[in-house]
């Protein structure tokens, strides 16, 4: 397990060290991509980068907090699909013509958003209940709820998507755009990241998360309510995932059941790439942001160089392994 910082004078903490190192990697990657990949250094490409990573980063905020507290959340991908599908189902008009998939519950959009978020937090509550009360390993529970959430999304859409009879406001959010491809979800992402950073660094809640991850026994004995804290983190993570689902549904103007497939892995990968520890007690939301852009630049430049998307799965896996190993190596050298 990684130690908290030895803050001797003039020596920065391990966490800042890792974040800075990964920022360095990011800059080097960016320069290399700009030099070697034709048409990479372009405002459109960079704006696209931001837009593509926005949803993933919002998702990774919750996952990172849980990782810091020493728990996993693999259910986020399924919850994204659930959020998109339910937000469409609740507000579809009741009198849609034709197939059954065109008819929904006909609620106002605002109500359907609130209900969707509540349903998604219900999945989070299942996670929290099993992890904190039943003491089941978080990976197993969240693997189960991933299948559960995705399964509900599939049932509601009968295995495909709900895109007919949606109100006009449904796609409103996805249509807002500022400069080029920078859309509302990027703005939302920036807001969420800033809030998360403040919570993480400046509030008691954030510090307690670190203590729980670093040593749950000590945290418990020093009076932190570990169970309720972890439960809140799970609810928060599922809330963010549900929000991402609603955003992505709005962008696609449909409730597609397969939205967010593989997001649980991607969120985990970018958190780990940025230097968040799997063992808990170490990491930051900033890590996830840096990691997201490292991954984004890699996959975009591979795309632009004409490699098939199949290879990118391999590249993603390989990069993650290298990142985990090299970060541990660097920290060992530094602390030796």
């Amino acid at each position, binding site marked *: 397990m990684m130690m908290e910082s030895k803050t001797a004078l003039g020596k920065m903490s391990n966490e800042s060290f890792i974040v800075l190192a990964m920022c360095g990697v990011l800059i080097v990657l960016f320069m290399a991509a700009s030099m070697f990949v034709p048409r990479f250094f372009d405002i459109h490409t960079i704006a696209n980068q931001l837009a593509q990573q926005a949803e993933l980063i919002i998702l990774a905020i919750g996952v990172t907090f849980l990782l810091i507290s020493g728990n996993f959340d693999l259910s986020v991908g399924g919850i994204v699909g659930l959020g998109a599908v339910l937000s469409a189902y609740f507000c579809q008009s009741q009198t849609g013509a034709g197939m059954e998939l065109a008819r929904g519950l006909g609620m106002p959009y605002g109500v359907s958003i609130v209900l969707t978020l509540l349903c998604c937090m219900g999945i989070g509550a299942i996670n929290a209940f099993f992890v904190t009360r039943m003491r089941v390993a978080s990976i197993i529970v969240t*693997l*189960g709820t991933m299948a559960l959430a995705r399964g509900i999304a599939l049932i509601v859409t009968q295995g495909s998507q709900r895109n007919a009879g949606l109100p006009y406001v449904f796609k409103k959010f996805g249509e807002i755009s500022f400069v080029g491809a920078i859309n509302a979800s990027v703005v939302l992402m920036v807001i969420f990241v800033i809030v998360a950073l403040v919570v993480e660094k400046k509030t008691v809640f954030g510090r307690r998360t670190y203590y729980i991850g670093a040593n749950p026994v000590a945290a418990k004995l020093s009076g932190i309510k570990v169970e309720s804290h972890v439960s809140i983190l799970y609810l928060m993570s599922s809330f963010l995932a549900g929000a991402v689902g609603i955003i992505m549904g709005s962008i696609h103007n449909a409730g597609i059941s397969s939205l967010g497939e593989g997001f649980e892995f991607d969120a*985990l990968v970018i958190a780990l790439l940025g230097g968040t520890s799997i063992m808990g007690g170490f990491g930051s939301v900033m890590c996830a942001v840096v990691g997201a852009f490292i991954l984004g630049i890699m996959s975009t430049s591979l795309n632009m160089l004409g490699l098939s998307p199949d290879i990118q799965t*391999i590249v993603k896996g390989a990069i993650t392994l290298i990142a985990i190993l090299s970060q541990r190596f660097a920290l060992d050298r530094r602390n030796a």
Partner: protein
Amino acid sequence: MAGLVERDLADVFRTPEPQPFTVLKTDLRSRIDMGILGRFNWVTFKNIFVFLVLAMIVIVFSSVSLKFLNQANIINILRMAVPIMLVSCAATLIMISANIDLSVGSIVGLSGVMYCIMLQKGFGFFWSAVLTMGLGVVMGYINGLLVMRLRIVPVIATLVTLYLFRGIAWTLTPRQIGLIKGNLPEGINDFARAPVLFGLPWAFYTAVAVIVVMVVVQRKTILGKYSAAIGGNLVAAELSGINVVGTVWLLYILSGVLSSIGGIARASYLSMGDPMTGNLMELEVILAVLLGGTRFYGGEGSILKTIIGALIIMCVSVGMTVLWIPPYWQSFAKGVVLIGTLAIYTLITEKVEKVTCR
């Protein structure tokens, strides 16, 4: 005061204190008189729980549909259960040693693709199978290397290899078709479809043989004892001279080999190499292992009961098809069964611990 702190400490530890490797079979104090039903015993109930579930599911499905309990359907269930039975054998041992292998589904997929590619290249059935199993050894070796030598947490290491192996399988298949098919030799179906005895194919008897061997390995050899010891208490196992690294590494290699045999069986059943076979299989395998009563934190478990768990999963998924429940209900059903199993076993285990650890 001291008592309070002690209880709090025990509360906090996720892993309960190391249990003896075998649960006490009979404990006089644990019996509750239930009148006509005889003596009810939580330990016995935990031991026979998985059999009860299988019996219940078979009864429910066969009373709802006449098509469930006929010969063709049973043969079909057993034929389709071959990969998951093979994979969950090794997965049980890995989970008993308190590790996990999430990459099994991808190994199944990649092995099937490799097997078909080698058949297309004209290697012949025997050498293709041998080379594919060799590939399985390599993949298991990689998992073991990442977990035991490079010391990456098993969950992350095998999650990464899950995507790595799946990516390789996708890369090997031509993009336009997305499958390896056509140009395959005659008789590719023989292994997993052609009836040999009682209408069941060779693949099934291979799986049965593997299960028998693995049950013997778990019960009678030091590999089984060592894995239980490692899962029960890692430090104690290390201090008593067990080669922990080697043992767990061997278990990962075993898992790789058995998964690749499962991949061969599946490719032979489908008569093509589909890179998506075994997708989400890790979920099914974990489900089978947990249904069989293996503790996720390691230390105890039984391969035979895992196999019953695997049969439960196959009965449910085939039964749903027989009852014309649409395929998009499958994911939901799996999730519900997994969560339900976790809940029931946690409750039973609490009762058992209350009885035996007093």
